[in-house]
């Protein structure tokens, strides 16, 4: 191999390694054995039947220097029951119950069928994928990273409809129990919604009534 070829290979090799490092999320490194980690996450996730937690949401928009923050109560019951109840700074509640989506805003309840309403189907897919850590879903391609405390699963949507609304779903999972610590929905323009679960209780009794809005 000529000197020029070696030099060019070195330059491109270094460039590719640098680009790979740049793509890597700060504070996380790629896992050594993605298959083993995937199996571990799936096994841990299958043990979680319910989650009750406070949540804090941050919405970052490129047009605003300040983030919009909101807080509330988060309930999840396997398979497809979810309640996001915003309490501060506005009262708003979204409930997903199988194929139904209920929204309560300023006292008025609206019901949607997630199967027939494309928008809600897409939102439903994203949020449930985040909570359930769906590394097996055909809708997303996963990449795995880790640090001392958490696994970070970056899901890239595969369907065109979801891709148009979402660049990646970044799910932070607790290494101890496989439960979701935080999830970020990153949009194609870089804007994102970040939801952090706080004071989490796993596998507590949750009534089915919590997932119906009247």
């Amino acid at each position, binding site marked *: 191999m000529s000197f020029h070829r070696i030099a060019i290979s070195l330059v491109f090799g270094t460039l590719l390694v640098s680009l790979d490092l740049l793509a890597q999320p700060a504070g996380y490194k790629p896992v050594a054995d993605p298959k083993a980690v995937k199996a571990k996450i799936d096994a841990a996730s299958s043990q979680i039947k319910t989650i009750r937690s406070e949540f804090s949401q941050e919405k970052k*928009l490129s047009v605003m220097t300040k983030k919009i923050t909101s807080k509330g109560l988060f309930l999840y019951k396997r398979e497809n029951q979810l309640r996001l109840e915003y309490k501060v700074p506005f009262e708003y509640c979204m409930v997903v119950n199988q194929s139904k989506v209920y929204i309560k805003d300023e006292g008025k309840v609206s019901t949607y069928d997630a199967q027939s309403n494309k*928008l809600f189907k897409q939102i439903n897919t*994203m949020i449930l994928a985040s909570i359930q850590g769906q590394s097996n879903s055909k809708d997303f391609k996963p990449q795995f990273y880790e640090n001392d405390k958490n696994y970070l699963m970056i899901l890239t949507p595969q369907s065109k409809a979801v891709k148009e609304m979402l660049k990646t779903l970044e799910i932070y999972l607790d290494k101890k129990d496989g439960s979701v610590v935080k999830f970020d*929905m990153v949009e194609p323009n870089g*804007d994102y*919604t970040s939801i952090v679960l706080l004071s989490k209780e796993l596998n507590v009794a949750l009534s089915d009534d919590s997932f119906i809005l009247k």
Partner: protein
Amino acid sequence: MGKWWLGLFMVLCFACVKPIQREKIALDEPDQPTPPFFQADSIHMFNTQIDAFGKQMRGILVAKKMENHSLRLVLIPKTGPTIFDAEFHHGKFRMVQAIPQLRSAPVRKLLEKDFKLLFFAPQKEDAACQRFMDNEYCRYQMDGSMKKATYGPVQHPIITLSYAYDSTQVPSQVIVEHAQMPLKFTYTKWIEP
């Protein structure tokens, strides 16, 4: 042969016509938002309710005058990804990002027209009608705290904008209603705590 000056005269005449036409368009459709919006603040936020064909959608509209003098309009739901992100730059409307349901040309045109009426319409004396975009635009004084504007033929407006005011110059609420379809947008001023 000897009429070369006539040709030159006609060329000069045509050369003069174009800038006058351009100036007329610029007068009718300003490329900067008109008062009272963006006088004291560069950003306005509205709690937004959309009633369309029996369905309802709510979110927060962020309207920001950017440093490059463009106007950015972003509608976000209280949960989930952005509904749309659009901008007016030099009078041209562009959809930066939108959910697939809002990408069709008719929806984009409808949003463009509504936002032009909301932020760019001439704010002259009440009851004064004038040409704006491709139709008549009239403003009416209702009572001390309410104003109305109509767009379209004076007797049968296509779009009606109802403004409510609190103590400030900026409306506390604007309702945009379409007469030809069951479509209503309610924008209520929202101040983040």
